[in-house]
């Protein structure tokens, strides 16, 4: 038996979290960082093995009575999500190095919870068994709940409960579908199974397939937040620390779009086509609504949350217009959005630490006092509005081009989103960074970016630029997954695959 690399990868942060339970307050943060970096190393090792063609899938019986397996594996999409998770966590830890909470909610608890969350998220992306996926999908809520509820603004307990209830509601609907899959796998084959590879072969019939798909889809719509079930996200980001928001928006919410491709498209191709028109409309609403709400936001953290809702709209649009360019672009978007939102949230965190407020109106003229912070903020913002040269441009362009080739009208409306993106980012920049230095700003912005803050921003900006100029590093890995999804849904591109010209 070969070494179980994937299980090992997921367990490294969990062991780190276990160590966090020991009374090591003095060195806790350092130890946590070591484990986070170790995870990055293992993740890179796994990537090398994957690209080298080594079979990594693991499978062992777990609950035979349910037909559930300990089954983990990687495809291109899972790999980029694993890398995103592994890379973001040490950056978040560094950014939240001085996190404080009340009482026993100290930095040690924060770092421990982040490591638990990292482990569970890695397993979510690697699971190839539906019950296993569901288990980790729900389990991620618990550390995130405590991260929101334990650290952050005055109404954090409310935000935490709101987050948990929305997610649980979606999750329970999905539970019904998960149980339904078990029942139907018995009815159709005689033995229960939860393996994705076997479930995708089942012929569920039109009606059952649609009902079961809806259960999964509702959970993912809540998770990815799409309008109208997005309201928990701005509340959560407003109340939690920026680091928590990065993990929430950058990693956990991706499970929604990830799940749409892997489970909705993979298990219920017919039903996915059936629901596509509705999803396209929902995606358009999210794109426009998110952008308009972002323009109207007076709170910087809420603003970024709304931009994310708009971006998630693009991802969903790319998935449900069924073109290989669109789906590839969507998956690439999931990766890029993780990094660019992380940059935005974390730089905002640095600003808020200095100013003590997240309101747009409390800022003004920051660029004269803290030019480095302003520069980083601008880079992060431009990445958010998908400027050419930034990685998000490539993905957004692919989604739009894919949509255009299938439904030009939809593509045209979605393009409005990019215009609005320029408005909300540039307005925010103008209102906070430029203009005359106000008295309050002068009082609070006494230091520019510290060394720690530069180390947080540098890798993010570097990755954004790298993937912007050399997108093929990631696209080469992602494309097979997108092609696979196209084959599963049994659709072909309306025109020659865009990737050919893009290359």
């Amino acid at each position, binding site marked *: 038996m070969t070494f179980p690399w994937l299980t090992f990868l997921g367990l490294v942060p969990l062991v780190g979290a276990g160590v966090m339970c020991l009374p090591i307050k003095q060195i806790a943060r350092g130890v946590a960082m070591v484990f986070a970096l170790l995870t990055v190393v293992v993740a890179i090792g796994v990537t090398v093995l994957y690209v080298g063609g080594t079979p990594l899938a693991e499978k062992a019986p777990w609950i035979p009575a349910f037909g559930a397996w300990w089954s983990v594996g990687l495809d291109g999409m899972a790999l980029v999500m694993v890398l995103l998770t592994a890379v973001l966590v040490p950056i978040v830890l560094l950014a939240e190095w001085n996190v404080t909470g009340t009482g*026993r909610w100290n930095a040690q608890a924060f770092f421990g919870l982040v490591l638990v969350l990292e482990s569970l998220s890695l397993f979510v992306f690697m699971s190839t068994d539906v019950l296993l996926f569901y288990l*980790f999908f729900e389990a991620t809520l*618990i550390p995130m709940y405590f991260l929101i*509820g*334990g650290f952050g603004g005055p109404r954090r307990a409310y935000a935490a409960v709101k987050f948990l209830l929305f997610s649980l509601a979606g999750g329970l609907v999905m539970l019904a579908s*998960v*149980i339904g899959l078990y029942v139907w796998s018995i009815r159709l084959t005689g033995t229960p199974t939860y393996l994705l590879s076997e479930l995708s072969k089942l012929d569920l019939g039109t009606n059952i397939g649609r009902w079961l798909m809806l259960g999964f889809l509702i959970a993912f719509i809540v998770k990815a937040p799409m309008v109208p079930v997005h309201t928990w996200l701005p509340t959560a980001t407003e109340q939690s620390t920026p680091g928590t928001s990065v993990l929430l928006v950058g990693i956990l919410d991706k499970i929604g779009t990830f799940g749409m491709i892997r489970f909705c498209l993979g298990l219920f191709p017919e039903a996915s086509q059936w629901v596509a028109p509705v999803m396209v409309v929902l995606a358009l609403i999210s794109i426009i609504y998110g952008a308009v709400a972002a323009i109207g936001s007076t709170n910087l953290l809420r603003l970024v949350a709304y931009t994310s809702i708009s971006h998630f709209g693009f991802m969903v649009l790319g998935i449900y217009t069924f073109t290989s360019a669109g789906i590839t672009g969507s998956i690439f978007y999931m990766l890029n959005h993780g990094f660019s939102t992380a940059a935005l949230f974390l730089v905002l965190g640095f600003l808020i630490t200095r100013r003590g407020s997240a309101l747009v109106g409390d800022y003004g003229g920051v660029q004269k006092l803290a030019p480095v912070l302003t520069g980083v903020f601008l880079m992060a913002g431009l990445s958010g509005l998908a400027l050419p040269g930034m990685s998000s441009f490539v993905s957004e362009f692919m989604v739009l081009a894919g949509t255009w080739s299938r439904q030009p009208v939809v593509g045209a409306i979605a393009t409005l989103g990019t215009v609005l993106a320029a408005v909300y980012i540039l307005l925010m920049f103008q209102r906070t960074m430029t203009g005359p230095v106000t008295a309050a700003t002068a009082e609070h912005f006494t230091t520019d970016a510290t060394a720690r803050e530069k180390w947080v921003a540098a890798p993010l900006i570097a990755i954004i630029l790298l993937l912007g100029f050399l997108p093929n590093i990631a696209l080469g890995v992602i494309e097979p997954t997108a092609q696979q999804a196209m084959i599963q849904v049994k659709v072909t591109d309306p025109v020659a695959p865009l990737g050919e010209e893009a290359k």
Partner: protein
Amino acid sequence: MNTLTPPTFEWLQLAPVLTVLVAACLGIVIEALVPRRWRFVSQIALFEVAVLVAFVFLVISWRLPADSMGLMAMGSISLDGPTYLMWGSLLVFGLLSLLVFSERDLDNGATAFAASAASVPGSPSEAEANTARHEHSEVFPLALFSLSGMMVFCAANDLLTAFVALEVMSLPLYLLSGMARKRRLLSQEAALKYFLLGALSSAFFLFGVALVYGYSGSFQFSAINDSISDPVYGRGLLYTGIVMLAIGLLFKIGAVPFHNWVPDVYVGAPTPVTGFMAICTKLAAVGATVRVFYVAFGAERWSWQPLLATVAVITMALGVVVALTQTDMKRLLAYSSISHAGFILVAVVGATAGGNGQMNSFGSILFYLIAYGFATIAAFAIVTMVRDSAGEVHAISGWAGLGRKNPLLAGIFALLMLSFAGIPLTGGFIGKWAVFSAAWRGGYSWLVLAAVAFSLVAAYVYIRVIVLMFFAEPTTGVAVGRASGMTWVPVGLGAIASVYLGLFPGPLLDLVTSASTFLR
């Protein structure tokens, strides 16, 4: 006609019940003969040894190459896979609850039971008994009697045995409920309520027995089932009888609309007794219900399934919705126990047999009960530990900030709440999955959807408690008492089992599904 066949009795196979029964009688002898200061210790030793010996007998008898299964004691006890599993779980949970009974460190060397239950609350004789440090060590034999009744109740193969067992199980519980040391009037009120309503429900049960006998001419479950397939009389008697029996059984399970006693009795009874009732009574009653409905009325399932489905829905609905508004921890746990009864009934309604090695209704129900049992015992044990100067703190607001005072205990309680809520990685989730899938496979997918919706409300109930413990400012005066191992063992085991069953449910699931065929 002329020859009398001597009654047969399978001593070895029935030894688990007999051991508990004999130990209960020995306990009475101890009360009569042993000096007062040695009684308590000898009672503890007795019940620990008795339960362990009973468990060993159970394993030996199960491992017998032949004769381990069958109708025992002239066909009045049905010793089959479910019986062995129920007995095993009853013994384990019985032992754990009795450990909590014997905790004396929390209240200055006194148990949770009144020094002299017969004296009027507030009277001089009560004060006298308190000063003399008297204690009612007969609570242990009472609990053992009740336990033996439970064991027979879930194994009974005819309605008369079931009725007798029902009474043996209930009478000691009525007494135990009235023996709280603190808040004695409340406790006595609870005992009276429990007794009156319990007697009423027993009367319904007995009436049902008579009607079903009238219809079928037999008390034996298998004979009743046969007469349903081959009826002599019209079905009126049968249906009325089923409803009457259902009332008696659902009362013990605590299902709506026969749940009214649950909150009052759970609050009034001494907390260790509440823990014992919450899991052991429920286990036995559910076991008996499943046996009666599946074995005796299996052929008539099309008539009772809609009935039980309705009861399940209103039980879940009322349990979770009313739990939302509670301000008392024991009342909250009581309503949560009602809602769990509803979730269990969801699987009872399913009534799926399952193929070889597949989940079936009884397996799901038992797994749910075991996961629920570990969490319940630990939860009530923790309720005994959170105290202020007046005794246990039952007001939920008093639990605020517990996470800061004692992170370990609050963490365990949060874990138990998550298990109650059915969040993954806990035994409660696997249990929920199992009962829901059993119902769906039985063709009740709408019931699953309803149950899923109520699960969300239930989750909010438990999350509220977690929010309060971890994110609220601590209240002054409330502290976690220093308990001995008698309380910590159930708490620790409950926590470990809740996680273990969530991560590795395979072995237990295999066990409960492999031995879940009822003998007819």
